């Protein structure tokens, strides 16, 4: 029991420290730095959403971009002021009652999440009966279908023109607040009996089913929850960006998040958190590589996309040296840190004696 209170206390301290750091950042950091910090939190949410289905449940779903799009469009349409909407929808006016409706940001995020969850349920009905590659392709297909529908629903989504003037609600508090809630939720859910059941499906479907774990029911649960979280992340991203369009939600978006999940470790919350920061910050600071480069006699005027090449190489290195990502399925907990510290100090003492 004592251990439990200690770790709770440490967690609270960490949260307070985090709030302090965020205050400092907001007070002193440049807008550029703040943007990166916010994007880290958003990517963290997106990565955890994907980790739930791909990492913890072991279902290789590639539908994330579609669910993000639902969340992004729902949040945008529910928060843009009525006057701005009227100006934007030039080809076809926005349908009632959306044209006059504006809701608080938090509510819009939740509604977007619920819409994506409902859609995930419908998509899951056929898709979750499939396995492996077939499931990946089917979910990918549905994600593309969502994007194509969005492109063509002129009177709801403004089609290919996209949506502009999305209020910038996703400040640092919203981003890190949501991220914290999602981390806590994932921590509690994955260690609950339901989380264990999902892991058992990942380990061996046949054995799990024979031990009474209803495959379809549990896969559906993971799929729907993952879609909800992905949509919330999409909503944050929409508000962060200020403008959205159907092209933002191509499959590449899914792969970007998948990269974080794989790098951090499929089935590790800590891994996704750490990798979200590494990847987001890395992608920003490697931008130098896109510009003009001179190495000795070799000179380029800048190849856009060069940083992604380098990034791919980095990812390969991670995969080669850490086969299961940086963390595998392990988590960083206070107990594991304590154990590590103890073994370190133990080794230190031995070193001194020798």
């Amino acid at each position: 029991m004592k251990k439990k209170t200690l770790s709770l206390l440490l967690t609270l301290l960490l949260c307070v420290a985090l709030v302090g750091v965020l205050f400092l950042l907001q007070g002193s950091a440049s807008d550029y730095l703040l943007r990166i910090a916010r994007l880290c939190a958003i990517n963290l949410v997106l990565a955890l959403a994907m980790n739930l289905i791909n990492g913890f449940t072991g279902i290789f779903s590639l539908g994330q971009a579609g669910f993000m799009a639902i969340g992004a469009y729902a949040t945008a349409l529910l928060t843009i002021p009525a006057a701005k909407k009227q100006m934007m929808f030039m080809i076809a006016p926005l349908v009632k009652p959306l044209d006059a409706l504006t809701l608080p940001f938090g509510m819009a995020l939740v509604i977007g999440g619920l819409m994506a969850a409902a859609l995930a349920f419908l998509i899951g009905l056929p898709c979750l009966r499939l396995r492996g590659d077939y499931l990946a392709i089917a979910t990918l297909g549905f994600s593309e279908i969502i994007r194509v529908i969005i492109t063509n629903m002129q009177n709801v989504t403004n089609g290919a023109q996209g949506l502009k003037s999305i209020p910038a609600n996703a400040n640092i508090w919203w981003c890190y607040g949501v991220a914290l809630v999602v981390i806590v939720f994932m921590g509690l859910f994955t260690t609950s009996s339901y989380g264990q059941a999902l892991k058992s499906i990942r380990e061996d479907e046949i054995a799990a089913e024979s031990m009474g774990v209803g495959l379809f029911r549990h896969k559906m649960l993971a799929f729907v929850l993952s879609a909800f979280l992905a949509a919330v992340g999409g909503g944050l991203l929409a508000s962060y960006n200020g403008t959205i369009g159907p092209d933002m939600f191509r499959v590449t978006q899914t792969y970007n998040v998948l990269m974080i999940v794989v790098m951090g470790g499929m089935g590790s919350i800590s891994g996704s958190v750490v990798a979200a920061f590494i990847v987001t910050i890395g992608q920003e600071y490697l931008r130098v590589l896109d510009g003009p480069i001179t190495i000795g006699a070799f000179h380029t005027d800048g190849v856009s996309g060069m940083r992604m090449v380098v990034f791919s190489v980095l990812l390969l290195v991670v995969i080669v040296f850490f086969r299961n990502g940086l963390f595998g399925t392990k988590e960083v907990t206070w107990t594991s840190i304590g154990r590590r510290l103890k073994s370190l100090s133990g080794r230190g003492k031995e070193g001194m004696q020798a």
Partner: protein
Amino acid sequence: MKPHVLDVSHATMQFGGLIAVNDLCMVIDDEEIVSLIGPNGAGKTTAFNMITGMYKPTSGIVSLNNHDITGQRPDRIAAQGIARTFQNIRLFKALTVEENVSIAQHLRLKSGWPAATLRTPRYRREVTLMKRHTEELLEYMGLSEQRNEVAGSLPYGMQRKLEIARALATGPSMLLLDEPAAGMNPSEAEELKSLILGVRDGFHIAVLLIEHHMDVVMGLSDRIYVLNYGNLIASGTPKEIQKNEDVIAAYLGVDEDDA
């Protein structure tokens, strides 16, 4: 009269043109140990799969404690009281010993996922009970010390035991063991024998077992069913089976000259 724990009646499993199990009839009573034997490819595991819901029988009825369970999903059947182990051990290899056993109790959990995530008092009560039961089972199987080890890292014999512990954790009225003694040396097989007897008496359950180790089969079984090419060729007590000419012919082949 008490109904049979398991009653398989005229069950047939056909894969295209192949009849893997043909018109199988067998019954198992409370606290009885019954073996299903036969040469390789005789349809023993197929029979298991029909009983546990992995396959839906082409025809025939499987009932458990007088309830028709034919063709139901494996997880439903597990919830109604049939637990099994696998011929090639199928543990949740990357999870700990403790987790393996507690997952098998998930089917009894009444709290929904929101309650489980929020750790409501009711969920915590349920988990405390599950933990205690896990502890008891591991103690019983002699796996307490390994509780935090990853299941895949255990030695073979312990993995077999853990699989039985996991099956028992579902709270079955009947346990199906698919070649539990496979790959065991005589002394390990002897230990397994007393383990199975202990399980039967301690948990008051019926045991159906597929086995090739004749020592284990003859020493344990109250009754034996013999399959050959999908057909039931004999059934009876170990003594009767040992003398049965059809069984001897199926196992050793018939000499053309004598026939």
